[in-house]
């Protein structure tokens, strides 16, 4: 018998590099779907995660939108949380130290209504230490001013990235909206503006109507659709982003199993984020990490790099 270890015991390094950012594995939890990251520590092996992307933080505290904020749809849900958050001051004083103590890479998602607001938030974070990257939320469908404009218009998204680039040396990921005619153009605009990575995608604008009252179920009208329902569309969008830029892409949208995550990695995403699927199963992202390792062993692949981008594109 050979000395080779049986496949189930072979240790596979799941570490991954996204430009300046190194993650222990490619599975993060998505912004707004894991609280600030410390709420769910009792419910999962937080240490097993590749990273935590925080709830989007803005300059001032925000109260968010009226209830109901969630509505379940087939294999997904529509949300309109409206960026409820503690504001940057309390985030830095209270939340960030707790997050950094978890011992996993922390990516802080930042939002704002104007370029200057994004800049101010980034400036404050630049003064802290320990953050792995900033994810710039230029794509929230649930804030009236700003958000939508940024997400639909490559020029204003680029202006935000450029503005933030000027005030910080932190790695910048631009979180892209799928609610645009060409996500490839949007991606390229963010790349040219100085982003180090691209997160694709945020939620899809969606509507549900109460047939009795004839009013929208979410009081603000439309909300953002997430969950497995969006996965195939999100995957196509992520692929488009991969094809249009050289930046590392972080795939997100409907991932609810290791197999789902593998699809994103195969089409070229360097990492993935688990979002809505954490709601019923906060431990799911940690299971996805295990599942990816198991798959690589079974497939006889020794590194994650062999898998990433191994898509056999019929267009190539």
């Amino acid at each position, binding site marked *: 018998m050979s000395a080779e270890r049986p496949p189930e015991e072979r240790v596979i390094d799941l570490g991954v590099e996204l430009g300046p950012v190194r993650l222990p594995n490619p599975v993060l939890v998505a912004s707004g779907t894991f609280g600030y990251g410390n709420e*769910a520590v*009792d419910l999962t092996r937080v*240490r097993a995660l590749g990273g935590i992307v925080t709830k989007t933080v803005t300059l001032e505290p925000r*109260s*968010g939108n009226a209830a109901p904020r969630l509505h379940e749809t087939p294999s997904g849900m529509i949300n309109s949380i409206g960026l409820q958050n503690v504001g940057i001051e309390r985030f830095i004083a209270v939340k960030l130290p707790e997050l950094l103590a*978890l*011992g996993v890479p922390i990516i802080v998602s930042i939002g704002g209504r104007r370029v200057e607001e994004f800049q101010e938030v980034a400036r404050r974070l630049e003064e802290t230490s320990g953050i792995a990257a900033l994810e710039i939320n230029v794509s929230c469908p649930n804030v009236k001013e700003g958000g939508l404009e940024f997400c639909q218009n490559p020029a204003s998204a680029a202006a935000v990235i450029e503005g933030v680039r000027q005030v910080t040396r932190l790695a910048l990921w631009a979180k892209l909206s799928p609610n645009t005619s060409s996500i490839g153009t949007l991606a390229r605009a963010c790349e040219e503006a100085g982003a180090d990575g691209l997160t694709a995608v945020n939620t899809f604008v969606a509507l549900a109507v109460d047939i009795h009252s004839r009013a929208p179920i979410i009081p603000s009208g439309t909300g953002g659709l997430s969950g*497995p329902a969006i996965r195939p569309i999100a995957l196509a969008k992520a692929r488009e982003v991969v094809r249009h830029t050289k930046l590392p892409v972080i795939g997100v949208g409907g991932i609810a199993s290791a197999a789902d995550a593998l699809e994103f990695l195969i089409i070229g995403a360097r990492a993935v984020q688990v979002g809505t699927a954490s*709601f*019923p199963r906060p431990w799911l992202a940690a299971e996805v990490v295990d599942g990816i390792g198991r798959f690589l062993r079974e497939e006889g692949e020794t590194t994650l790099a062999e898998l990433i981008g191994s898509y056999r594109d019929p267009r190539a």
Partner: protein
Amino acid sequence: MSSTDRCLPKTPSIARIVSNQHLSGGIYRALLRMADDWGPSLPGQFVQVECPPREAFAMWRPFSISRFRAERHELELVYGVVGLRTLRLSELTAGEELCLIGPLGRGFEAVSGRRPILIGGGRGIAPMIGLAERWRESLPDGRILYGARSRDLLIPIDDPPYAVWLATEDGSAGFKGNVIELLEAAIARREIDPATIALYACGPNRMLAALSVWAESRGVPCLVSLETHFGCGVGICAGCAVPVRPRDGEDAFARYRFACVEGPVMDGTRVEWEGVAE
């Protein structure tokens, strides 16, 4: 506690159905056998239940713990059939299993020095009975006010720990009217002194809203277990937010409280009820 200790997973529990019985008017009582180390729990806390049919993704449903008998490891849930998940839940039979997380959230805690008046509307009576059982020794002078639409919707209460005063909207059983009118009648008869009581309530949000307004006007402490749409039940989705009147010095973030972790039992007199869905 070190941060490593906190990383231990709190795994979901497997619950085996002991019985799943129809009580009245679309309301059921499920008795679940839990693992030996499950609990302890407080009435007013809840569990997140993976209701059938099992799917790769579906939101789990919150249900109040109406009672937990630690010595028998039996958890009791009382639920109404309103949609697909609760319908499927009602079809489960003894021996079948469910996945759940809990106990979660904040339950009812006694306001010290006050006589407890427990108020249950509809299926909301169930956790109130569990609460009364817990308090019957330490706070023996409590009362239960139970409101329902009509006699045929009443849930039978065996061996009530406190005296139960009944109100039905159509007068088909007990007092004719709602629980607030019942409460006022008891005050008029001097059976209850508003200066010495605290209210604990569970029921439709509409009832909780009216009760809270009444309690505030009388300076009576009023704790309510309220329901909003829960996405996760564990504080990570921000979906369950309840608007409250901020206190001095609190910022905009504090305007919304997460019912799943800061509730579901909350001070009803601080809730902005117009912002809570019915």
